[in-house]
């Protein structure tokens, strides 16, 4: 679904990630892991067309992003704690804006659009709150609004930037539960995260990044195994970043 070949991606002539090869296939749940500044967010921004691909290739559904007409096939959940503009807007209004990639200019919302919006809101468990101003929701709930907005156009793949960061344990569990439901429905997920532990139940692969390069690309089981033994095994300690150590105990 997504393919990066020797891709260097960055902003304003300055590459942040270098020579990245990455392939995500249908049905996979891939975590991009790494410390701050490792370039994991830049990779997904490159996939989404928010950062510049300076060399190499980024293909989405087999075509360069510029040529992809059906942009609704990718949903994007940005790293943000809030979705609040200066004018109050309700959950339903914000989620409905996620439906626009499927709409033509000047076209009105149809019954089918409204049904899709309602379904997306239901998937994240906010149906009872859909007429509530987003500003009145908790941080975890606002995060779910952003997920619903990305789901409203019925994407085949969801790209999420730090969905669990700054969310308390209870809401984190809820969020992962939502992700489990989405994966069960066949959605492909690419998740940028500091920590893979909370997503243990859904993850199929972990791509570890450091200093703008891919450091390791492991199946989830190996990634968690490495995290468990990282501190004691000399070989793993070398091949697996130290910051992964200790994840096993929290996961």
């Amino acid at each position, binding site marked *: 679904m997504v393919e990066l070949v020797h891709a260097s991606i960055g902003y304003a002539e300055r590459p942040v990630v270098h020579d990245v090869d990455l392939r995500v296939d249908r049905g996979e749940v891939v975590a991009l892991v790494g410390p701050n500044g490792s370039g994991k967010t830049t990779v997904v921004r490159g996939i989404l067309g928010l950062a510049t691909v300076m060399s190499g290739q980024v293909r989405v559904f087999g075509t360069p992003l510029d040529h*992809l007409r059906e942009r609704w096939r*990718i949903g994007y959940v940005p790293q943000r704690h809030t*979705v609040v503009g200066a*004018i109050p807007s309700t959950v339903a209004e914000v989620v*409905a804006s996620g439906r*626009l990639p499927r709409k033509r*200019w000047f076209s009105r919302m149809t019954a089918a659009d409204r049904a899709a919006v309602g379904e997306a809101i239901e998937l994240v468990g906010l149906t009872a709150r859909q007429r509530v101003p987003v500003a009145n929701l908790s941080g975890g709930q606002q995060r779910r609004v952003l997920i619903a907005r990305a789901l409203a*156009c019925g994407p085949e793949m969801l790209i999420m930037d730090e969905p669990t960061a700054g969310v308390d344990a209870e809401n984190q569990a809820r969020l992962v539960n939502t992700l489990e439901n989405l994966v069960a429905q066949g959605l492909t997920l690419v998740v940028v995260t500091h920590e893979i532990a909370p997503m243990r139940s859904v993850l199929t692969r972990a791509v570890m990044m450091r200093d703008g390069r891919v450091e390791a690309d492991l199946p989830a089981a190996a990634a968690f195994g490495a995290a468990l033994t990282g501190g004691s095994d000399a070989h793993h300690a070398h091949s697996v970043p130290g910051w992964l150590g200790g994840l096993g105990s929290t996961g």
Partner: protein
Amino acid sequence: MELLQYDFMIRALVASLMVGLTAPMVGIYLVQRRLALIGDGIGHVALTGVALGFLTGTAPVGAALVCAVLGAGAIELIRARGRASADVALAVMFYGGIAGGVVLIGLSADRPANLTAYLFGAITTTSGEDLAVFAALSVAVLAVAVGLAPRLFAVSNDEEFARASGMNVMGLNLLLAALTAATVVISMRVVGLLLISALMILPNAVAQVVATSFRSSLLIAVAVGVGVGLGGTTASYYLNTPSGGTIVLLAIAVFLVATLTTAARRAVHSRRAHDLAEHTHEHGPGCGHPAIEHGDHVDYEHDGHRHAIHGAHYDDH
């Protein structure tokens, strides 16, 4: 009504109705993006257009429209580049607009006596011809603002998401800039170029404190815009005051009343209810708090009182 006997007052009321309708509808997106002062900047640039019109003997309204649209486009392009110098670049442009206008007017042979009409508004001097131009502009602004409302909302609410969704963000931003420019030109005879964005911003400031959704904000803002436009124009006739200042002061009064009553209502309400956001969980079956059937809904016992969900908060029952 006495004032309806005069043609110039009827024209004035029609002009203020058009401004009251269009300005808040465009302004809501500026407020949403926290760009409330952009309209003022475009107003400054429009002054150069008015002066060019006087200097070349063409219609000031048309020249102002061309200048305002070009200026608004340039402002948007400068803003989009997002450099640290953008702020200063915009300031230079705004000063340039006023300075250019004043110098060009100084150069024109027959100095227009009614320059103050453009600076501070002189609604009663609106000619039938002006009115036709404003009406055409209003219809165009309303058609675009209503037809593209979902897209303008999306791009104002979260520009990055809009871009990632493949929306033409630059196109929409330039379109909003053009709408703002057109609204500036419609408003300049009514409130004047120096108060130009008051009617774009103040009705939305009222909506911001009163409304609970974007849709209701828009409706409230338009109602306030039309109300203060017509009310201010009428008041200026009886009080013999300038229309622009009267309309704007009325809008500020409405804003203050809305803010104070909302604050008072919240203070009373907060004793009886608290926000959902204060709760670590949503009350529901199995939340651990005892559920008590209460008529058509269920209350949850919590810290010694009963909670019933009501919109964005819980009421105590």
